[in-house]
């Protein structure tokens, strides 16, 4: 009952209102010259320095869903859930050099989205459209998942009702507020709020990792309790260590997720908003500090086991909602006011990425669908306006996903999202280094990778589901005589690359037109202070850039 959680609800609401106010004030922060421009609304004026970028990108990548789902995975499956740690270690050295090239070429050409880059690099509106749609489709369920994070907290506080509307009203209100200040302040809102979010999360985690082990008998006991639970369970793949069968899955999932992370449009938005190349490099070396946080948060799953937490029932009868274990752990172990602070940390942790993601999706729509196909001569003010409205639509869509569909459906979609965003790797990430791939090859490779990825995900069963039961594909389905599993995304992107390469060789032999590369090698090294080209004027003035494919 919600009355038992009154203190928690009050603390949660107060902190929530505080950041909402900050979100509205953010429009005036760092004095934009002209808010009616996509560079200002959607990229914060491309002016963010080291600290803001750190909080923004960090707040962007480590989301409420991470904080709820990773410990939930540890709670349910054990060691396999820890993949988030190597994943977030590997990602930064992996993209250290790649992202500064993307920043430079985007700075010089005024690119706002990864599809903008692909459009100019490969001279193919079709490929750019595919990249844009992939980005939007992968981002939508990700936003919906942020709502799952908030909902886990609200459920634990007893803020829930019988009817569909009553159950979701708090989420709808929260998202209406979020939509309003994102509309007004653009990327400045999540950038400013990220400070509060991270401060709260750091405080909560520091207190948790010092206080809870002391209360639960020390780390050794916590691991032993988890071990005992997994020993007793019938599932052969859980445990506090990996076994012979899930190691390949663990490694490929960590690596594949790392490859996917900075292909997500919202991560790219965060990176493009930074002031210069140095800011990005410095951030790539400092951001892993969050991984430590993530590792400790993951272990909350084991603390919940040691504390004997029983997850709340799920949406369907007989199921349990493991996403509630962390909120329940806080509720059981902390005084009410501190549990309220912890809940606010999770709730606000959902707002920051949700805002950035909706902005990124809106930018993709505006630049690569609206401007490309609906209104070629859109002015910067019109662009900004379309983006603002699209960001509202995106959020309404995300809320509708949660209200009218089973939240489990969003989780499945997000699983798919990771696999599909990986299929943009050849065009976006490799495209930053080489134009060797033929644009048609990239398109067909995308189709092949996407098709195979979907088929593989469909084949994965879990104890509760026949299809889309996870991302671990059993190798025996490929005819190998082994119980080992592998991450679907890696296989799909390898096939994508192979198809793209093969077709490139064929197309080159047949002398198929390749289009004009709108970038020069020098573009990839431009830094702050470099004269910018306005993309609209450039594209319109140069007839050679008209679409060919």
């Amino acid at each position, binding site marked *: 009952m919600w009355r038992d959680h009154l203190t928690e609800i009050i603390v949660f609401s107060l902190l929530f209102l505080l950041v909402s106010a900050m979100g509205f004030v953010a429009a005036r922060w760092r004095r934009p010259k002209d808010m009616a421009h996509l560079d200002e609304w959607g990229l914060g004026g491309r002016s963010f320095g080291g600290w803001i970028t750190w909080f923004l990108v960090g707040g962007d990548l480590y989301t409420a869903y991470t904080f709820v789902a990773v410990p939930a995975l540890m709670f349910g499956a054990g*060691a396999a859930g*820890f993949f988030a*740690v*190597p994943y977030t*270690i*590997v990602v*930064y*050295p*992996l993209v*250290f*050099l790649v992202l*500064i*090239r993307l920043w430079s070429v985007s700075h010089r050409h005024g690119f706002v989205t990864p599809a903008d880059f692909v459009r100019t690099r490969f001279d193919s509106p079709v490929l750019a459209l595919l990249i844009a749609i992939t980005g939007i489709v992968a981002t939508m369920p990700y936003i919906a998942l942020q709502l799952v994070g908030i909902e886990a907290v609200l459920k634990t506080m007893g803020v829930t009702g019988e009817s569909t509307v009553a159950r979701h009203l708090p989420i709808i209100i929260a998202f209406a507020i979020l939509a309003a200040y994102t509309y007004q302040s653009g990327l400045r809102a999540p950038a400013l709020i990220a400070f509060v979010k991270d401060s709260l999360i750091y405080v909560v985690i520091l207190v948790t990792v010092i206080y809870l*082990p002391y209360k639960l008998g*020390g*780390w*050794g*006991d*916590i*691991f032993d309790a988890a071990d005992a639970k997994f020993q007793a369970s019938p599932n052969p793949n859980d445990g*506090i*260590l*990996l076994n012979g069968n899930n*190691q390949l899955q*663990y*490694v490929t999932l*960590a*690596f594949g997720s790392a490859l996917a992370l900075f292909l997500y449009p919202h991560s790219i938005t965060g990176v493009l908003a930074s002031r210069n190349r*140095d800011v990005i*490099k*410095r951030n*790539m*070396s*400092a951001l*892993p*500090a969050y*991984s*430590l946080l993530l*590792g400790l948060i993951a*272990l909350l799953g084991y603390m919940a086991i040691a504390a004997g937490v029983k997850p709340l029932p799920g949406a369907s009868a007989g199921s349990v909602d493991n996403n509630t274990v962390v909120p329940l752990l806080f509720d059981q172990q902390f005084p009410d006011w501190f549990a309220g602070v912890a809940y606010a940390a999770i709730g606000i942790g959902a707002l920051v990425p949700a805002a950035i993601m909706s902005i990124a999706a809106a930018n993709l729509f505006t630049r690569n669908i609206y401007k490309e196909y609906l209104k070629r001569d859109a002015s910067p003010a019109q662009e900004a306006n379309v983006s603002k409205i699209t960001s509202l639509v995106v959020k309404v869509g995300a809320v509708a996903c949660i209200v009218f569909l089973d939240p489990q459906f969003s989780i499945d979609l997000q699983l798919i999202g990771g696999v599909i965003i990986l299929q943009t790797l050849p065009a976006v990430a490799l495209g930053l280094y*080489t*134009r*060797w791939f033929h644009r048609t090859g990239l398109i067909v490779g995308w189709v092949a990778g996407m098709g195979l990825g979907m088929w593989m995900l469909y084949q994965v069963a879990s104890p509760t589901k026949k299809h889309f039961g996870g991302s671990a594909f059993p190798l025996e389905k490929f005819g190998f005589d082994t119980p080992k599993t592998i991450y679907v995304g890696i296989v799909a992107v390898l096939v994508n690359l192979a198809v793209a390469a093969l077709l490139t060789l064929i197309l080159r032999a047949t002398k198929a037109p390749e289009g*004009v*590369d*709108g970038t*020069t*090698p*020098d573009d*990839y*090294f431009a*830094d702050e202070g470099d004269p910018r080209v306005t993309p609209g004027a450039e594209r319109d003035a140069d007839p050679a850039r008209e679409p060919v494919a």
Partner: protein
Amino acid sequence: MPAPEPEAPTTAPTRAKDHSPWNWLLFLPIVVPLIPAFFNGDAPRIFGFPRYYWLQLAWILLGVSTTTLVYQMTKKRGSR
């Protein structure tokens, strides 16, 4: 304006701006955390943490120190 070939040798001088032997170090924190043979064990425990957990957390330090070192050694000094 004809588009220059990206692989053309004329690009070598600008290309060198991002080239540094230090960059090879970045492979270390990419490869090492992905070898389960290193970390997939219980003993020795440190502060109650099985090796699986403390060693993977320790690799965060490997990641941070490597990228920081590479950043410091390759960052722009003056006009170079």
